[in-house]
């Protein structure tokens, strides 16, 4: 009909008509989108945008919120604790505080630490475990195949959950690289043995054992475990070491980092970090 109206040859009309239709539809849709976006505009929370930009964006959940956006929302809604992001660290806390106009809280830099020295050289297996090769599954079967039921199983559930690749397997247990670790806490949560703990990076000693059994039983099952001889507790000048059953525990707040306990421990369960 267009070709008859304007005396255009049919071949040209066959290009112009579809072109006009598609162009018309696109323009119409474009206009509609702009109009709708204008009438349905949401007020942009600028403070939240600025806070989100200051956060590292790793979405590890270590702050306790659902991703970085969740923490930004908490701060925008009036939260004042800017030190919850372990990944961003002190620099991030300062930036968040300056956006909010509050004083920055600097949390001490922490790292995860494995409180176990029970490598395959120190322990043995109670049975041959043929099930699903994860710590949480093995824990369900009589506490796992290790001779010490308090120790690291070494299947690496913590490695799977670590978003920063800070953990690796070594000699049947795991080891953590303090330079990569951001202390987000996900490994601590997933470990069924509760043998991972967040310690300050400045900590010098810790008891690398969780075994509360009496000394003789401990020695039978792991040659690196704490036997509860109390030598460390007696030699500590600041009283930072206390006993839980037959297990010594170092209170990092009282520890003066003198290192006297390291020399006296017969099994080297209390070790320099």
């Amino acid at each position, binding site marked *: 009909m267009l070709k008859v109206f304007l005396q255009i040859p049919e071949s040209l009309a066959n290009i112009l008509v*579809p072109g006009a239709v598609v162009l018309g539809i696109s323009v119409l849709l474009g206009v*509609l*989108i702009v109009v*709708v976006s204008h009438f*349905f505009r*949401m007020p942009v929370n600028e403070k939240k945008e600025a806070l989100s930009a200051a956060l590292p964006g790793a979405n590890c959940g270590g702050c306790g919120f659902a991703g970085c956006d969740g923490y930004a929302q908490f701060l925008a809604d009036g939260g004042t604790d800017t030190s919850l992001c372990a990944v961003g660290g002190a620099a991030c806390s300062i930036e968040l505080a300056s956006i909010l106009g509050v004083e920055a809280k600097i949390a001490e830099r922490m790292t995860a630490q494995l409180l176990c020295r029970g490598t395959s050289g120190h322990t043995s297996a109670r049975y041959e475990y043929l099930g699903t090769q994860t710590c949480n599954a093995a824990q369900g079967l009589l506490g796992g195949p290790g001779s010490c039921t308090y120790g690291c199983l070494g299947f690496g559930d913590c490695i799977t959950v670590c978003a920063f690749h800070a953990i690796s397997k070594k000699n049947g247990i795991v080891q953590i690289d303090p330079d990569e670790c951001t202390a987000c806490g996900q490994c601590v949560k997933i470990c069924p043995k509760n043998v991972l703990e967040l310690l300050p990076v400045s900590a010098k000693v810790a008891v690398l054992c969780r075994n509360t059994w009496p000394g003789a039983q401990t020695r039978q099952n792991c040659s690196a475990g704490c036997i509860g001889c109390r030598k460390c507790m007696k030699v500590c000048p600041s009283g930072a070491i206390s006993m839980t059953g037959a297990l010594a525990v170092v209170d990092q707040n009282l520890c003066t980092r003198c290192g006297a306990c390291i020399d006296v421990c017969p099994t080297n369960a209390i070790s320099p970090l």
Partner: protein
Amino acid sequence: MKELMIILFSAILVDNFVLSKFLGICSFLGVSKNLKTAMGMSGAVILVMLASTALTWPIQIWLLDPLGLGYLQTLVFILVIAALVQMIEMVMKKTMPPLYNALGIFLPLITTNCAVLGVAILNITKSYTFTDSMVNALGGGLGYTLSLFLFSGVRRKVDKADVPEALKGLPITLIAASLVAVSFFGFKGLVENLFR
């Protein structure tokens, strides 16, 4: 009425968009990991399928066909569906925040989902009337929901199983999906005889 029920049930069971026609697989594999996201995604898909059918069917029948421009179907449908989803997202964000929190984040995912485009095109190919098309779209969305629910259950079991190293992750998921699809073959011949 009987024809509408046949269309509805064949879209859900026999001609299930995901498991029989193999449309919308990437979003199906991506969202079926846990049940909560599966629910949100299926809600979004049902909404978008209905809305896009309501728009694209009239455009084809009253604009493109009379002008002899049926071949522009794919291009125009994609334009319309993408713009429609954008507008739905903007309106939903402002007027229904709880609904937006539940399924709003899935809307960009289905902007060019082939299942949505598939519904729109199949309505035309099968020469459905407007009511038939809307029922087909509803059935398509419900069928997608059904397959998502079924498959998220299957995936949870597969996650706990001892999978050979070479098949871990995507390979075993695809194999599981194809086995579920085979099971849907059993529905062939069911629907026509149900409403006889």
